[in-house]
């Protein structure tokens, strides 16, 4: 134990430095309607990477609930949430960032999960193991993945 502790601290320090530019989950500034005006990373989003993160089950898994005509090559789109076709005509970048990062600030009772939130859960688990997890949990999406997904959603103008 004694030998491990300093190493862990070292790793934690390096990690903190590396992500210093990111807005942490508890510091995301939602306005009163749920929009987030500032980028979470300062790095422009990559739409292609965003689609990948949306499709990946262990990340966004957005297609579990949403349908997108432009992504018809991805199999099995769910119908729990509304179609995201034309979503960029309904919401601007700041609103989409707010919806992806912490949707309950926009729709308080929605079943959609909060993708950039790490604590305040009831019976938080350790992933899908069914065992207890310890908060703060790793967020469902990284800050950059949120930005990437927003960039992709902004391409959905019709």
């Amino acid at each position, binding site marked *: 134990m004694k030998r491990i502790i300093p190493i862990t601290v070292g790793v934690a320090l390096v990690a903190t430095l590396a992500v210093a530019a990111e807005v942490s989950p508890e510091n995301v500034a939602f306005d009163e309607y749920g929009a987030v005006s500032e980028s979470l990373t300062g790095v422009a989003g990559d739409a292609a990477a965003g689609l990948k993160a949306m499709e990946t089950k262990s990340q966004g898994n957005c297609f579990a609930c949403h349908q997108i005509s432009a992504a018809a090559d991805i199999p*099995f789109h*769910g*119908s729990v949430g509304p179609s995201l076709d034309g979503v960029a005509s309904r919401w601007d970048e700041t609103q989409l960032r707010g919806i992806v990062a912490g949707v309950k600030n926009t729709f308080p009772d929605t*079943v959609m999960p909060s993708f950039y939130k790490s604590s305040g*859960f*009831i019976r938080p*688990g350790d992933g899908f*193991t069914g065992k207890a997890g310890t908060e703060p949990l790793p967020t469902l999406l990284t800050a950059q993945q949120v930005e990437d997904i927003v960039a992709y959603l902004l391409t959905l103008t019709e």
Partner: protein
Amino acid sequence: MTKTVLKGAITSVAILAGAGMALAEGNLVINGDLELTTEAPAPSHIEGLTTVYSGWVFRDSFTQAMEMDDFDNPGMLFVDAGEDMWNEPAGTSGKACADCHGDASESMAGVRAVYPKWNEAAGEVRTLEMQINACRTENQGAEALKYGKGDIVSLEAYISMQSRGMPMNVAIDGPVADVWAQGKQMYYTRTGQLELSCASCHEENYGNLIRAETLSQGQTNGFPVYRIKDSVLTSAAGRFVGCVRDTKAETYKIDSSDFVALELYVASRGNGLSVEGVSVRN
């Protein structure tokens, strides 16, 4: 809902949940002669639903057909295994279930429909699995069986078959009232990192697709359920473990008093639907 149709389960589901999906037409008739109730007015103690539907209604026509013929229903093999257990002496008593309870078609008729149920002597609510284990440990002198799948569920399936076609009718008041209220509270609690409750999926979104899977109302009248996907017969508690885990939550223990409460409450949501004996789901 203004329609009062008999064969309208499919249409009404689509209307209620707005899913617009194509479900097979028809009612659940087993072996061509036993017609089961898969759609019923919601019991008055359930505020969130006007009509209750068996999970059978939401399955594809292939899966539905498997449950309509006992020769095609893989769950029947477990029923046979359960019958053997019923007649087989076990434990230090050297007695079989049949030695105390006789002919199951008489003594066990109606039992499945009223469980989970208050046990006065023990002063607790018991699921059918708990009652089976209580008989084993207290009366047979045999070891308790593990919940969820395996031998205990085969025995449960055999007992359930004796109530096939009877309406679910669990009691929610009197001595079970507090436990029922606890189960209701659990049903609406949004757990895990995905912050989903049972109601998020099974009350607000039944009939909708979650990826490739059509959400049902999560009723328990069909249990034990043979799941084609993993070729096992599961009890309700076994299913609950998976559903809670899928919210990225710490599940409750399969033999916990929490799940007893949840099982009682969920069973009461299906009062009026037929006991299916042993059902098939994908």
